[in-house]
């Protein structure tokens, strides 16, 4: 049961990343690999600030997100103002961030033992002890209270991020941002500062990635410079699985779908690991999975085309 709660919690924490990937992948139509660096940046910044004890857990999350936003904005500037291919701009910033993250932490990982994080703060408010393992019975299952509160907090976090993004994309600014990704020529002709839209869109996407990283570090109790590795593919998998689960493409459902996709994917991974999958194969299987999810709809289209052709010739 503890494993299941942890699966849900991590799935929810990474769904914040998935929502960010949704912006770059579905609004601007490219996979922004800056997210991997931003996630690690968020984790590094959060870990260092938490151990320094100079800011409250909430402030730490905001600063981490702001750092991610700066990274995303940099990718946006490289892409729009210096006309560097979006994918390459992301790779450049991600690579640079690896060194930045090492400098931020001063070493390759930072442990957060007995530090006050957003999760321990939440436990404190709910009067849940950090040391004693209290449990509660939910429909016959024994659930650790700490696990439950962490899952609850992650759910609140994912919900707030998802709702904020949903509301933003329905504003005049948000609609202009979507138009920029959908048809740049049209947006520009209607007076939208398209460069600014791309820059701020990527800033939001990477702020979410960094926030996800900060939450992940707080939850796991450590930050590692490698924490972001493979996370973009993870985000893509979540978005794609979500789209398969929820076939509607409206904004609200797309965001909900990304969150669901993230939880579902984490669940699949947990099950696979439980049944003896070699953890070393995880990234390979994730990548193959995303590849298949990308290819299968295209194959479906081709089949339909050939079918309609056959019908016509008949």
């Amino acid at each position, binding site marked *: 049961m503890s494993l299941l709660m942890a699966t849900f919690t991590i799935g929810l924490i990474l769904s914040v990343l998935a929502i960010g990937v949704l912006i770059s992948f579905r609004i601007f139509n490219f996979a922004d690999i800056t997210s991997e660096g931003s996630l690690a940046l968020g984790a590094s910044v959060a870990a260092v600030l938490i151990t320094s004890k100079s800011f409250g857990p909430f402030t730490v999350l905001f600063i981490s997100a702001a750092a991610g936003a700066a990274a995303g904005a940099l990718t946006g500037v490289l892409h729009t103002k210096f006309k560097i291919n979006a994918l390459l701009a992301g790779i450049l910033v991600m690579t640079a961030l690896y060194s930045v993250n090492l400098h931020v932490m001063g070493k390759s990982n930072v442990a957060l033992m007995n530090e006050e994080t957003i999760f321990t703060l939440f436990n404190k408010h709910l009067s849940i002890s950090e040391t004693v393992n209290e449990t509660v019975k939910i429909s016959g299952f024994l659930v650790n209270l700490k696990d439950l509160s962490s899952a609850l907090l992650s759910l609140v976090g994912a919900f707030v991020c998802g709702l904020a993004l949903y509301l933003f994309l329905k504003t005049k600014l948000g609609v202009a941002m979507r138009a920029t990704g959908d048809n740049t020529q049209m*947006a520009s002709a209607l*007076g939208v500062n398209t460069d600014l839209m791309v820059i701020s869109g990527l800033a939001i996407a990477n702020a979410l990635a960094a926030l996800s990283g900060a939450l992940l570090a707080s939850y796991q109790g450590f930050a590692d410079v490698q924490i972001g590795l493979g996370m973009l593919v993870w985000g893509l998998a979540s978005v794609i699985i979500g789209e398969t689960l929820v076939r509607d493409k409206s904004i609200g459902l797309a965001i909900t779908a990304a969150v669901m996709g993230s939880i579902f994917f984490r669940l699949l991974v947990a099950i696979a690991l439980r049944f003896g999958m070699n953890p070393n194969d995880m990234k390979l299987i994730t990548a193959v999975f995303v590849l298949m999810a990308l290819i299968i709809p295209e194959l479906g289209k081709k089949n339909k085309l050939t079918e309609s052709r056959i019908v016509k010739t008949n």
Partner: protein
Amino acid sequence: MLKLINLYKTFNPGTPDEVRALSGVSLSIAAGSFTVILGTNGSGKSTLLNAVAGTFTLDSGVIELDGRDITGMPEYKRAAYIGRVFQNPFSGTAPNMTIAENLSVASMRGKTRGFSPALSSAAAAGFYERVKSLNMGLEDRLDNNIGSLSGGQRQALTLLMACLNKPRLLLLDEHTAALDPKTGAKVLELTRSVIEKDNLTTFMVTHSMQQAVNLGDRIIMVYKGKLIHDFSGADKKALKPRDLYELFEEIKRRELIDPGVCDILKANYV
């Protein structure tokens, strides 16, 4: 109100693909006038329109709109004064957004976009009325994605969007050329009524002599990046499509003469 002073633009300079698209175009357009630009393929007529819209930077020359120098102004800032409809019916709308959302983007042309909801009920009601005025039955499909509509419907919506906030200048770039004749005629009729209703200053590029003769109060012919004819007032009214065809024939003859004359000169003198 629109003044073009000595515009020059060469694409791909110094390469074999060098194109002198504008070579010294000067033109002044009065407020409320409807100017039609005619020219053969590659004559520079679309380039002229794009120069006004600001899609590229000029090599030299000055563009003034309402006495304000807009030469260095980026495209999206000029859009505050300029409404545009493109040749490709798919260029002017965002396919994966609903009709209402597209109109919402257009309704903020020239205004500051903030964090207020894009589709308030008041705005939606306004959009409903405007779309209804197209008489295409699209007002009941405001929440459908524009990508599901036909080219003609999308072009009609693009025109509506370009004029949603009255533009100082309307740029039409062969906007009916890609439509079938019936739909094209409908969009053209719509164009005429919109322009008359708001007394818009219009700058239209076309291939069609018939359109040029029927519409507008001034015809400008462009050839090799230069203005070669300019008819307005009574001259414009007296023009028949046949006169324009003859002018085009004359251009063709000129083009034929060039290499021919070269050969003769070579044979005689080299």
